[in-house]
């Protein structure tokens, strides 16, 4: 079971909303936002543990958002979504600090598995308590 809060940032509204809905059906605390700038702006307010981030969005590049997230919120685990299917893009994202990447169209089981790993990773690094403390400090 994924304990952390999940934020989905993807410009494809239908996709993000449906994915979010499906995650919620599985008991995951998930929120969806449909632009890069909005997503970045709401990080402080929402305080997600895991961000599922689209690599290509019209207003901002996914890799730039990733860089900012990692600079300002290093504890957040980011899973990159890519329609490119490019291993190189995924690898580049991981070099910049992404936890993992997954190709579109997304297989929910695979995504859930990666999220669980990320969630465990967070737990291993201090768990939700540590993250909660960070959120408290930010707020």
């Amino acid at each position, binding site marked *: 079971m994924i304990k952390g809060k999940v934020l989905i940032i993807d410009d494809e509204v*239908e996709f993000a909303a449906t994915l979010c*809905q*499906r995650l919620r*059906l599985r008991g995951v605390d998930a929120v969806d936002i449909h632009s890069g700038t909005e997503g970045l702006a709401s990080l402080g307010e929402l305080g997600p543990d895991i961000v599922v981030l689209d690599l290509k969005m019209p207003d901002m590049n996914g890799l730039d958002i990733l860089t900012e997230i990692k600079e300002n919120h290093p504890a957040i685990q980011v899973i990159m979504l890519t329609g*490119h299917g*490019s291993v*190189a893009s995924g690898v580049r994202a991981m070099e910049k600090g992404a936890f993992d990447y997954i190709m579109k169209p997304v297989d929910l089981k695979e995504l859930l598995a990666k999220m669980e790993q990320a969630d465990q990773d967070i737990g291993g690094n201090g768990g939700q308590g540590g993250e909660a403390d960070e959120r408290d400090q930010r707020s």
Partner: protein
Amino acid sequence: MSLKHGWLARIMPSFSQDIEHGGDLEKEYRFFSRSLFAIILVLVLTPLMIISMLSHYQYRQLLQKKELAQIVLNVEQGESTIERFVSKLQSIIKFVGRDDRYQELLDPQALETLFSRLQREYPDFVDLEIIDARGISRSYVGPYQLKGREYGDQTWYRQVLLKGVYISTVFSGFRRVPHFVIAVSRRHPRQPGSWVLRVTIDGNTLQRYVDTIRTSSVDDIFLVDGDQKVLTRPQKYGLVGQHSAFAEAVESTSYDLSSIVAEHEVLLQQHIAITVKKIQGGERILHVAVDLKETPWRLVMVKELYMHGEAWFYFQLRLFSILFCCVVVAIFIILRLSNGITSYIRESDRKRQLFLAEAEHANKLASIGRLAAGVAHEINNPLSIINQKTGLVLDYFEMSGVFDHKEAMEEALDGIQKSVNRCKTITHRLLGFARHTEVESEEIDLNLLLEEVVAFLAKEATYNQICIDYALDQELERIVSDRGQLQQVLLNIVNNAIDAIGSNGRIILGSRQKDRGQVVVTIADNGGGMSREVQQRIFDPFFTTKETGKGTGLGLSITYGIVEKLGGTIRVESEVGAGTCFEITLPVGRGQAG
């Protein structure tokens, strides 16, 4: 000069034609080869011909000058010899017939004594005669009875009185033996008028003198008189007493002596006549004649022109033999050379055509790749939505209880998801085809890699009773390349081979060293093979012979792209009913990154 517009462009094969016009191009190659042959031949033969003609002309001039100089020298020597002889005879006769000896010589005894003495020295003296001032023979010693004869009205007698000396031509007369006469007039010591001493000399004397000046450098020497009657015996041309063979001969006009004779201007002033005469049989003869001083004789020397001689014949034979050999050798070498150059150009053009075709193919692939990537990317998003939406509906179904047609609806949604997955495979492959990934290099043992790849497919091969054999070069050099991409290439081809065979067949995987720096991997199957048309399109994207839904038509396009990216080449040989063989050539060192 620009190659496109110059004269060279007219003979060069125009490569602008494409492969379909190979027949026309072949004609142009032949035309080029012939033109090249002709041009080089002209370039080589022209100087050769000029040199030969110059040699021919120079040697002819040399021979002409030499033969003329030689005959002129001979004529001068001959003239001098005979004139000295005549002068000597005149001196002797003048000496023995001093003015005051008239009375003494009238005595037959005294004349006989003088004649005997003279004959001892000059046996050819035939007779001796004393003629008085009236022209009557007063004393005679010799084989005939001439005493008392009157010569007063004869031409020679008047001439001797006039000039002091008379030398006759050679004639036979009543004696019927060729002879000539020398007469000198002497002043009477006590009476007015002159007496004459007349000596008859055998014609053979003259013949002997002419024979002494005979030489091998001239063909004939003889004397003629003013009427061109031959006085001494010629060796080749004519007879004594007849008209000279050259008297009536036509003077040759085609043979110009003027330039050579000009060097002997002095001779011309001395009345030496040099002509070229054409005799019966067509031969041309150099004819030189000179009037001998104080005699009515003319010395004639003749010689066949150089062109009838051995020196000229052998010179021409050698010259034309050498020329002929040079021409034959030149033709042979130039033919080989022009054919060689044409072959080289033909081969270069062929390689260029292949290169252009490959570049065009690669360009086409790149364009299609870019288009495919765009399409795939755009399709991916709606696919993702469909995928999630169907997933969501299925999620709701799972949470709902049983309702009408639930099972049928679930099946339909499953179908949608399977189709989405199929689309996903296609878009992923399209993206894989188009993307430009970095080549990750590592050292690879190709033989091991082949075996690893086969391990993936071993089960499938076994199920289909397909036997996989190896023909590996155990000494094969290790190569530096991208392991993952090579695996993909080999998997693709071996997988295709299994599909092509279906069941019951054989695949042979081979490896060999091509040359230093290149290795070759071959994958041969004994499947159904491919027609030529299929072979030509096999690397095109979306081209597939598999049934709908089984193949995307991208596998071999991707394979082609990867092999190119790794710096290698891939080619296929196939025969319908016999099987197919893919041959991949890879560089041993790191291939170029794409």
